[in-house]
C-alpha cells in the first residue's frame, strides 16, 4: 500500500536566539490519517518541534514539509492545512465561548462549510452546552481546554497539531478528549500529531510514537513494537530502558 505522507521532518535542528539547542537532528515521517505522538520528558524539544511544524518558529537547519509544502518556503500554504493547539492556549477572556468559536471558525471556512457549520460542530465537540453563553473568563481550566480542542478539530484540518492536549485535566476529562481525537481521525481521516509527557496516555491513543530526549529521537514505532523491542511492560519502562541505553 502506498500511503501519502502528511509530515516529513528531516534532520531538524533548532537553536533558540538565546543559544539553547532545543532540537538536534530530528527526523520522522507521519502518514496521512495517522495519529503520531511525540513523547518525552519536559524540555525534550516536543513543543519546539510542534512550533516549527505549525510555522511559528523557523528551523535552524533541516527540512520540514507538510503534504509536500515546505514550512520555510511557503508558511501561508501550510497554515491553510493545519490547525494548531498550543501547549498553553488562551482564549479572549471577554468573549463568550460561542463567540470565540464563531470567531475562530471564520478563519477556516472554505468550500462547502460555512463558519456557522464549523462553529456549530465545535460547540458540539466542546460539550460545554449552555456554558458556551458565558464569558470565557468564568471557565475552569478543563473547560478552556475543551473549548480549544473543539476549535482545533472542528475545521477538519488536514493536520491537527496538539501540544499536550490533555495536560492539566482530570482523568475523566482526559478520557473524553482522547475519545474525541480518535473519533475525529476515524470519521474525517484527519492526521494528528500530538505531544505528551504522559506515556501511558499515548499508548492508548496513538498508532505510532516517537520517543524524544534532549532533542534527539531515541526510538520510533507502534507502541507494541517498542514494548517488544525493549522488553518493557509499558512505555514508561521502555523510556527508562532507552535512556540507560544511550548512557544519559
Amino acid at each position, binding site marked *: 500500500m502506498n500511503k501519502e505522507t502528511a509530515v516529513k521532518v528531516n534532520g531538524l535542528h533548532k537553536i533558540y536566539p538565546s543559544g539553547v539547542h532545543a532540537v538536534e537532528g530530528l527526523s520522522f515521517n507521519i502518514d496521512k490519517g495517522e495519529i503520531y505522538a511525540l513523547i518525552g520528558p519536559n524540555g525534550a524539544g516536543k513543543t519546539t518541534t510542534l512550533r516549527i511544524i505549525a510555522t511559528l518558529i523557523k528551523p535552524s537547519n533541516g527540512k520540514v514539509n507538510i503534504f509536500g509544502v515546505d514550512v520555510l518556503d511557503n508558511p501561508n500554504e501550510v497554515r491553510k492545512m493545519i490547525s494548531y493547539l498550543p501547549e*498553553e492556549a488562551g482564549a*479572549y477572556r471577554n468573549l463568550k465561548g460561542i463567540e470565540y468559536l464563531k470567531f475562530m471558525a471564520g478563519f477556516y471556512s472554505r468550500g462547502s462549510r460555512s463558519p456557522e457549520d464549523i462553529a456549530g460542530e465545535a460547540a458540539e465537540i466542546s460539550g460545554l452546552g449552555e456554558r458556551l453563553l458565558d464569558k470565557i473568563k468564568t471557565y475552569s481550566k478543563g473547560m478552556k481546554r475543551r473549548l480549544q480542542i473543539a476549535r482545533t478539530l472542528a475545521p477538519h484540518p488536514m493536520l491537527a497539531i496538539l501540544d499536550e492536549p490533555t495536560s492539566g485535566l482530570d482523568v475523566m476529562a482526559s478520557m473524553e478528549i482522547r475519545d474525541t481525537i480518535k473519533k475525529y481521525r476515524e470519521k474525517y481521516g484527519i492526521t494528528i500529531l500530538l505531544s505528551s509527557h504522559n506515556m501511558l496516555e499515548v499508548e492508548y491513543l496513538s498508532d505510532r510514537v516517537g520517543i524524544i530526549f534532549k532533542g534527539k529521537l531515541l526510538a520510533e514505532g507502534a507502541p507494541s513494537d517498542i514494548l517488544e523491542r525493549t522488553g518493557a511492560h509499558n512505555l514508561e519502562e521502555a523510556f527508562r530502558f532507552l535512556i540507560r541505553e544511550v548512557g544519559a
Partner: protein
Amino acid sequence: MMIWPLVKKEILDLLRDPRIILGMIILPLVMFGVLGEVMSYGTQQAIYVAQPTNMRIAVIDEDHTNASEDLISYLKSITRETVILRNIPNDPGSFAEDNGYTGVVVIPPGFDYNLSKGLPGRVIVYTYMEEVSIAEASRVTSLVGLVSGYGGIVKSKFASHVNVSTDFLNSPVWVTGIVSMGGKHYSSAQVNALTGLLFSIVFAPLIVVGYASQIAATTMGVEKEEHTLEVLLSLPLNRQSIVVAKLSGSIVISILATLGLSGGLYLYIDSVGGLSGAGGMPLDLMRNVLTPYSLATITIALIIGVILATSLSMLLGIFGKDVRSSQSMAGIIWTLVFVVGYGLAMIQFSTLSNSMKYVIAATPLAAPVLALKLSMTGINEYVWISILFHIVETVLVLYALSKVISSEILITGLGLWDRVKRVRKIRSRRVR
C-alpha cells in the same frame, strides 16, 4: 515585618526585566537630560533678548518737547543702540523685524502736555514676533517693560505736582504694545495669552499620541500574556493583516480620543481664556490666528503623528514579553513626545541653523507640535518637510513591523539578554 519579602519580590520582579529598566529609568534620564539642555538654551535665548543692552530700537518723536527728549535720552542710556527716525514706517512692527530693530517706539504729540497736567503720558511700542516662543514673548514683554520703566523717573520729577491723578501715580507712562505676527497685529497682552495658550495646547498632541501609543504597544503584549498569540499566528491569514488590523484598531480609538480631547480643550481654553483679560477671549484669538489652511495642516500633521506613534509603539511593544513590559517600551514614545513638545514650545525655531531645523523636523512626532507652533505665524515649509519626514519614517517602521511579524521574534524574543548573560558567564568562568 512580613511585608518585606513581598516588597523585595515586587522590586526584583520589576528590575529583572531589562525593558522596564530601559523604558522607565534609562530613557527618561537621557531624554530629560536633553530636555534640560533645550530648556536652558531656550531660557538663554529669552534672557538674551530681554537684556536692554542687547536691544536696538528706533524712536519717532512726534512730540518734540523736553519731556520726549528726556525719554529718548533715557532709552539711549540703557539700550545698546537707539536710532531716531523721522517718519513712522508703514507697518512699524514689520519694519523693525526687517531692519534688525527690537522695536519701534513712537512718542505721539501730547506726551509732555499730559505729564505737565498730571496725566499719564502715552507711548506706543511696535514690535514683532517671528513665532510663538518664550524668547519672542519675552522680547515683547521686556521692550514694553523697558519703556514703562521710564515711569519711575517721571514719577520722581512730577510727583510734587498738586493735582496728579491716581492713574498717573499708578503708571505715569502708558505704553501700548502693538505686535505684528504672521501679517496680523496683536496687543502685547494678546501675545502673552497666545504664548500661554501654546504651552497648554502642546499637551494636546502629547495626550493623543500617548493614548495611541499605549494602545498599540500593549496590543501584542496582551496576546502574549493571555496566550492567544500562538493561536493567532498559526491561523490561515496573512501576517501583515494582523498588523493592519491591530494598527487600525489603535488608530480608530486614538481618533476618538482626539475628538474627546479637542472638545475638552475647547472648553479648557474657553474657561482659562476668560481669566486672561487679553482683550478678547483666546478662542476668538485662536480663530483669528488659525486659518483654514493652518488648521488643515495641523490636522494632517496630527494624523500622521498618530499613525507614526502607533506603528512605532507597536514595533517597540512587540519586544515586551507581557503587557507591563510593553507599556514600559511605549514609555519611550511618551518621553519622546514630552521632550519634543516642551522643547519646541520653549525654543525659538526660526533662529536655529538650517541643519538644526532639519534635525528637529525629522525628529519623530515633532510634526504636530511644529505645525501647532508655527501655525500662529503662518505655516512654513518646515512643517511640510517635517510631515514628509514622518511619512518616510512611518513607511520604514511599517516595513520593520511586517518583517518582525513574519519572523519568529514574537515567540522566541531576541534573546539579547540571555546572550549578554551567557557572555558574562563565559567571562567569569575564564577569570576563575
